[in-house]
């Protein structure tokens, strides 16, 4: 990594579901959408590169199936990449491709240097365990063994995300969708990771609840200076949150730049459609 305000670099990252064939392994220009007509392999993410700068919110927008979640899952080590490199400033000063480190090291990075908020709270939370225990899980995984310290940290973050402390021993399965996302956010932040990944976190929530959660995300970014990647199919959300934006289509970045510029002067035909749809 070159400039030192870059906290994450992704280089030529691809993910295929399937073996691929002679045709599509070399050249993906013949795909039908993201599928190889010759062998049926899905090319979910194709040759993506980008940098995430300190304290910025980077948006990734694209329709359903464009590869957003697959990309996020690779960054959080939920899914293995097919090819490409991944560097983090917080890991060996960005000198090592973290896709290549041991699974134990990957867990360490996940637990201490990254936070993830999934669209589906079931993926990010143990829905039957208390909210406090859910937060402690991240702290325990990061090596904490002191109950008093962990509950103090939990209180702090539950307050930060506006969960009444009177409900901290309740399981998120009793909570509304918006509250569940708040608990996920508290958990993801609990170890003060330099990078937070948010995948469609407001999708499916009522509009007013959605606005509250988005406001919370902005507030956290301002207060904690954490760098974020926000994924959404909804350009309106990206517009509200993100400094820079990448547009994904069939696993490829078709356009990227300052969000305002993309909105004012979209280059790609697909981006133009997206922009007009929210005007």
């Amino acid at each position: 990594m070159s400039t030192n305000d870059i906290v994450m670099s992704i280089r030529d990252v691809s993910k295929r579901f399937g073996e691929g064939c002679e045709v599509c392994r070399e050249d993906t220009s013949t795909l039908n959408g993201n599928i190889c007509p010759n062998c049926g392999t899905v090319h979910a993410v194709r040759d993506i590169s980008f940098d995430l700068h300190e304290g910025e919110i980077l948006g990734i927008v694209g329709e359903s199936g464009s590869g957003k979640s697959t990309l996020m899952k690779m960054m959080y080590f939920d899914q293995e990449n097919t090819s490409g490199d991944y560097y983090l400033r917080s890991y060996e000063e960005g000198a090592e491709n973290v896709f290549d480190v041991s699974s134990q090291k990957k867990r360490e990075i996940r637990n201490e240097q990254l936070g993830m908020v999934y669209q589906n709270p079931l993926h990010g939370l143990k829905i039957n365990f208390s909210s406090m225990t859910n937060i402690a899980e991240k702290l325990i995984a990061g090596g904490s063994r002191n109950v008093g310290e962990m509950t103090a940290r939990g209180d702090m973050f539950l307050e930060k995300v506006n969960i009444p402390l009177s409900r901290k021993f309740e399981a998120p399965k009793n909570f509304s969708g918006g509250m569940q996302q708040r608990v996920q956010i508290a958990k993801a932040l609990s170890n003060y990771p330099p990078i937070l990944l948010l995948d469609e976190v407001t999708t499916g929530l009522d509009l007013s609840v959605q606005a509250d959660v988005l406001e919370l995300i902005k507030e956290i970014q301002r207060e904690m200076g954490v760098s974020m990647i926000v994924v959404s199919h909804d350009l309106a959300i990206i517009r509200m949150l993100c400094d820079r934006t990448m547009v994904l289509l069939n696993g490829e970045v078709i356009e990227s730049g300052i969000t305002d510029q993309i909105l004012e002067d979209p280059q790609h035909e697909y981006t133009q459609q997206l922009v007009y749809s929210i005007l």
Partner: protein
Amino acid sequence: MVQNFAFLDEHSKKEIRRKTLKAIAVPGYQVPFASRELPIARGWGTGGLQLTLSLIGRDDIIKVIDQGSDESVNAVNIRKLIQDTTGVPETIDMNEATLVQSRHRIPEVPLRPSQILVLQVPMPEPLRAVEPSERVTKALHGDKEYSGAWIKMFEQIMKYGHVTDDADYPVLVNGRYVMAPSPIPRFDNPKMNDNEGLILLGAGREKKIYAVPPHTHVASLAFDDHPFEIEDFSDKVCRESGVSGVFMDELIDPDTGENYYVTNDTSYMLEQLNKEEEHVN
């Protein structure tokens, strides 16, 4: 057809011994093995029994206990099967036994060098309560990622103020693997640490063998500010034998309705009574 010594065929015994050696070489690690059918139902100690049958020789003296008792139906059935197929002598005396099979207790008399204790295990996976997939728990052990065991205890502390697992309380073996010690009371956990004998654990239904070799460090999991504690019987006295400081069953006198305590390890209690008698005579 002639019945083979110790019921199992030699091939099966060899397989189990091989897996046992592996388990001893990697303390606390669950080694999969090809569990055999035995003429008792799975889940009734077939894992422990297969270990015993693969290890037993003509010079052994066997002791079988179930929850501290040599005389429970289970203990009697298992002992009968072992004796019918080997002809080895039985004992209830820990000092005589060379091979001890037990369910849910580690005897009060410490194991001595070269003595083997086989524990029957219903559920070998300490992470199962939080992670249903075997493939995942195997990877978690591989990465020494034991948050699952810890959050289970953390949740109990949140709900009840303390860890509520009274039996099968998880331990860290040799600083590496978190292990389910089988449903022994917490009281017995410290006995595993740095003990002189060999402890083998067998789960028949789940097809796993694991081991605590002599002089292995075994620590019960505990948070810094919630230390591990055993059941406290220090102020209790056994009504039958007058001993204290051992694991006791709490019973209710049907006549008076009062609680009283009796030593759970019955052979230990008999030993104490005999000693007393000798003393008197």
